[in-house]
């Protein structure tokens, strides 16, 4: 910091904004663009969802949510999220632990593999399971003789959801754990903690906010996934229709209120996620920034 060259430039800049050189009008235009974009593409659709849902009054809104098929779709979505999110917590922590704390061959490959669901279209993610578990698929005959049902039933929907949401927890934790290194764990071990104690009292508290952040995103996607689930669902009413699939069905039946009522629940979930995320960042912003490395 004692470099005289850098110091000599300082008087030309306003404090705390060393990188900003644009004039005030330019800044205003940029901010206006962002603002208009957000209003048109994010806020308006959100308002329309709620407006359409309540178009025929609160009574109709509640009535359409208490429809048997709608309730079963909500139940199924909650069930799928309740299975796939904990699974992803376990997989995510394990994967991040392995990648961050150990050195082994094929580590780069494993990291790429974890990112794969992000780069593959969800429809393909679903089709992969059809090709694998379908009656004409690789394991189809074996599954049939053993009476195991995966495709067009809850297990298939869970598998597809786990696949598309897989990177969320791991990607939050890997950079975090890598940055933290092994120091704390080594200290704990040298003080006589066993492996489980080290994980529970040292590693987990260190990554808790990153983990929670990942879980939030993972949950939002698990409940909202359409493409992959659509391929493996079989669309059986009251049995294998998740909320996003049910929205499409209701809309195609010209039941706009029903469709937007279910959509409003999904939108509500997104809002809750957003609020939680913002609260996390407000309260633990410094900690998150310090541990997330960006």
């Amino acid at each position: 910091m004692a470099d005289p060259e850098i110091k000599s430039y300082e008087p030309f800049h306003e404090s705390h904004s060393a990188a900003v050189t644009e004039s005030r009008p330019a800044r205003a235009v940029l901010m206006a663009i962002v603002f208009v974009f957000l209003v048109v593409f994010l806020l308006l659709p959100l308002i329309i969802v709620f407006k359409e849902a309540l178009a025929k009054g609160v009574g109709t809104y509640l009535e359409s949510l208490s429809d048997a098929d709608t309730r079963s779709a909500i139940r199924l979505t909650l069930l799928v999220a309740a299975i796939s999110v904990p699974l992803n917590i376990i997989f995510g922590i394990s994967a991040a632990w392995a990648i961050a704390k150990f050195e082994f061959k094929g580590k780069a490959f494993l990291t790429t593999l974890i990112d794969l669901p992000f780069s593959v279209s969800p429809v393909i993610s679903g089709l992969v399971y059809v090709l694998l578990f379908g009656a004409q698929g690789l394991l189809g005959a074996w599954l049939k003789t053993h009476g195991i049902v995966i495709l067009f039933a809850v297990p298939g929907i869970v598998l597809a959801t786990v696949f598309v949401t897989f990177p969320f927890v791991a990607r939050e934790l890997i950079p975090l754990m890598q940055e933290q290194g092994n120091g704390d764990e080594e200290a704990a071990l040298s003080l006589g903690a066993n492996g489980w104690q080290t994980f529970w009292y040292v590693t987990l508290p260190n990554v808790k906010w990153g983990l929670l952040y990942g879980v939030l995103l993972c949950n939002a996607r698990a409940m909202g996934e359409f493409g992959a689930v659509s391929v493996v669902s079989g669309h059986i009413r009251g049995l294998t229709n998740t909320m996003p699939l049910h929205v499409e069905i209701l809309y195609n039946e010209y039941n706009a209120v029903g469709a937007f009522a279910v959509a409003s629940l999904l939108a509500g979930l997104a809002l809750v996620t957003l609020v939680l995320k913002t609260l996390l960042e407000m309260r633990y912003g410094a900690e998150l920034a310090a541990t997330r490395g960006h």
Partner: protein
Amino acid sequence: MTKPHFRKLLGALVATSVQFGTLGFAFADTTILNVSYDPTRELYKAYDEAFAAHWKAQTGETVTIQQSHGGSGAQARAVIDGLDADVVTLALEGDINAIVSKSKKINPDWRTKFENNSAPYTSTIIFLVRKGNPKGIRDWNDLVKDGVQVITPNPKTSGGARWNYLAAWAYANANDGGDEAKTKEFIGKLYANAPVLDTGARGSTVTFAQKGLGDVLIAWENDAYLALDEFGADNFDVVHPPTSILAEPPVAVVDANVDARGTRKVAEAYLGYLYSKEGQTIIAKNHYRPSKPELVPPEDLAKLPPIKLITIDDPLFGGWKKAQPYHFGDGGIFDQIYKPAQ
């Protein structure tokens, strides 16, 4: 939030997941799954209820019918890939034949199992116009007039749209004595009058009825009446052109699945009852054309006036196998005549 709090939160998460995990699905006595296509939702909702009551009265058994709806081709694919359908009720004979040839789950002689080549109902293509029919649309040649906007989906992506196209083709062919150049010109004019081609039939209905675009919607008869119910009978009129095309959506029992599940008896009764007085009446009430209209009270047939219908197997088209690539394949007639508005 302190560390113990965080652990409590994790614990709560796990506890919730256990709770949801125990929410199983309870099955009634017998369940059968009917894998169908999109526009039959309302029909089977009504019919399933009637059949369950009939079956209960006849045998004392409780039967629950589950429904799966989607694009007809995609639904056939799902059955091939293992969707455990007891019966399929699809849009096209070719979709059931695909299940026969690719999975052998349906016996090849399925068309002989029920009357009328296993087609308990038929449907046709008609017009939906604005109330009072301000543009005076009565027949297909009214669609190519200047200043008439036609709403129809894209035949490249929509099965229903192909029927619309072929119905117009049949009219034009008869009208200009089989001169294909003239027929092509007619179809070209018709699509030049279409301001937008939606990807599916329901998309077009929404464009016409909800967004208020266009003077006439070419639609399935049942879809036109459904739009009337849904968007208000005071806003639209149904117009039956003197000629149109006949679609015969077929039904079949999925032999391999019903034998494995022991549901053959109820599955066959389920499809057979479609031909009964009650089944045919429900069909008419949902604006499909019953294959045995003599069983249906005349007042339920009032909205389905007889019109001259040509089938896809007519020599003019030579069946779907010939018509599909000729009209809708890459470089086919539709590609030659349709130029999207710039």
